[in-house]
């Protein structure tokens, strides 16, 4: 139990260190961006006097280290400053966009699990059979389709086939939760497609691998039925190895949503990010990048914890 706490503490320290490095990376990156935020805010017609005034107001004239310090403190208190471009709290801006990105990622993740899991189980039942081969080939093709191409195809399909699923008409969850889910289904599906293929492939091979393992042979020799072996031994074990891949998929999905929301014109973090990039909105940009990384770090951390819960070998070292 002692070393269990040690494991947790170790992971936590690692998490904090990672976050610190992440914040440093983010800050340095944005400190060397060419372009003056004040000039961007005021536009081409503004005079130099106006620009200088604003620069002082924004604190852009202070030394880098001071700016990093105050920014870091802001991050930790979930208040990383005010957006230059929107004149609003960065935290608030991000919070506004989060429902889209998180919702899309969550729906995509559910799709990945709901679709790939049964497919993998079925496919792994008879590896090498026709159905399995077809699944594998389709999986590979899906894997190779970039999410934005999938989005284009889906829009085309959706427009002609199911006009029920709305394209590009975002509804906020507080107004109409069902409408919110409805408008995210297509984009989520576009992100999910390649990940379904990925998780299918991984799960399938992991199930096949587990099925040939020694303890399955033992269970067979104990007279257990195939179904029982699948449920009680094969799936739990392949789940353990899938936890890591799931967290990687989640991080990929987050990244994928940044592009796909562009295609579907959804007001998510990706569009906020691109607009922040083009407007030199340093507080906003760094806020988005940091918090996205933050989410990923937390996801990885949780997946480590989940793995240690699922696997007694990690839990009871």
């Amino acid at each position, binding site marked *: 139990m002692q070393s269990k706490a040690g494991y947790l503490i170790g992971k936590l320290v*690692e998490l904090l260190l990672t976050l610190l490095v*992440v914040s440093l990376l983010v800050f340095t990156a944005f400190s060397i961006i060419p372009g003056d935020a004040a000039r961007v805010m005021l536009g081409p017609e503004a005079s130099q006097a106006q620009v200088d005034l604003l620069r002082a107001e924004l604190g852009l004239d202070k030394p880098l280290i001071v700016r990093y310090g105050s920014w870091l403190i802001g991050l930790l208190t979930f208040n990383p400053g005010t957006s230059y471009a929107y004149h609003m709290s960065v935290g608030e801006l991000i919070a506004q966009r989060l429902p889209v990105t998180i919702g899309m990622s969550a729906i995509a993740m559910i799709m990945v699990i709901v679709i790939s899991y049964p497919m993998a189980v079925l496919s792994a039942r008879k590896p090498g059979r026709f159905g399995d081969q077809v699944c594998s080939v389709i999986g590979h093709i899906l894997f*190779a389709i970039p999410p934005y191409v999938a989005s284009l195809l889906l829009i*085309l399909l959706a427009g002609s086939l199911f006009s029920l699923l709305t394209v590009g008409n975002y509804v906020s969850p507080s107004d109409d939760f069902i409408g919110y889910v409805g408008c995210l289904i297509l984009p989520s599906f576009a992100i999910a497609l390649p990940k379904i293929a990925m998780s299918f492939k991984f799960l399938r091979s992991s199930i096949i691998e587990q099925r040939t393992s020694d303890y399955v042979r033992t269970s067979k020799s104990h007279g257990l039925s195939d179904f029982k072996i699948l449920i009680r031994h094969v799936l739990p074990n392949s789940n353990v190895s899938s936890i890591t891949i799931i967290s990687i998929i989640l991080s990929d999905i987050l990244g994928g949503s940044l592009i796909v929301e562009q295609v579907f014109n959804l007001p998510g973090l990706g569009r906020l990010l691109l607009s922040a990039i083009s407007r030199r909105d340093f507080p906003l940009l760094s806020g988005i990048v940091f918090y*996205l*990384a933050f989410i990923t770090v937390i996801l990885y951390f949780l997946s480590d914890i989940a793995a240690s819960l699922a696997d007694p070998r990690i839990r009871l070292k």
Partner: protein
Amino acid sequence: MSSQKTQSKRSPEASAFYIAGLILLGIVVVAFVISLFWTPYAPDATDAASKFLPPSLEHPFGTDNFGRDVLSRVMSASKYTIFISAAGVAIALILGTVSGIPAGYYGGFTDRGIMLLGNSIMCFPGILLALVAVAVFGASVTNVIWALGLVFAPTFARVCRLGTMEIKELDYITHARVMGVKPVRIMTFHIFPNLVSQLLPATVIGLANMTLFESGMSYLGLGVQPPDASFGKMLSDAQAYFRVAPWLVIFPAMMLIFYILGLYFISEGMRVSLTKGGK
């Protein structure tokens, strides 16, 4: 011994993957090689008179909104795709091995330091990091390559690190240490050659993933810059017209998918023959 060799040569499954992969990849590579010497039209020559021509004998893939020949553009786009992915993977590979092998070999604080940096980079959704890097340094082919190389380096570093940790426990490395071989020499001549078999599939997959990223960035306008052609940019330009000129979407998408799929198939073939060989 020789019988063992023929046995582990190739399973039919692996060869099917290899053949399919090589055919798909071959199409793109042939287009690329030909484009180095010749394209039907200059890929960036506009011709306002022949906009949106559907595929015909003159323009097998049709023309775009500038009246440019899509076939020529697809051919020249394959050049960037192949070049960027290859150069990016090379950078990632170099950074990855140079950091991953020492991390795995020395362990301890070296390992922790390098892995902390690597993990921190991996904490950004990859495309995000590449986008920001390109946004910071400006969109150009060189910057895209560096950004992608940086983003993918930790992946290779991981492979190298894990491989090194495994290999360094083997007797021949212990033997080399006992013999007094210097660490740098152990890493370069004793460990690295044995990592190649693990790095190869990772490299092929890296090529494919990098292409996905590159096309995504170009799609967002932060990759290859016009008038140079790239699949992602062609697709994003074509998006507005895909109801009236579907060939603008179909052909670049097809080539892009061929390239990625070809690479996936080859890596799958490698994987299959590796695991089968292992048995």
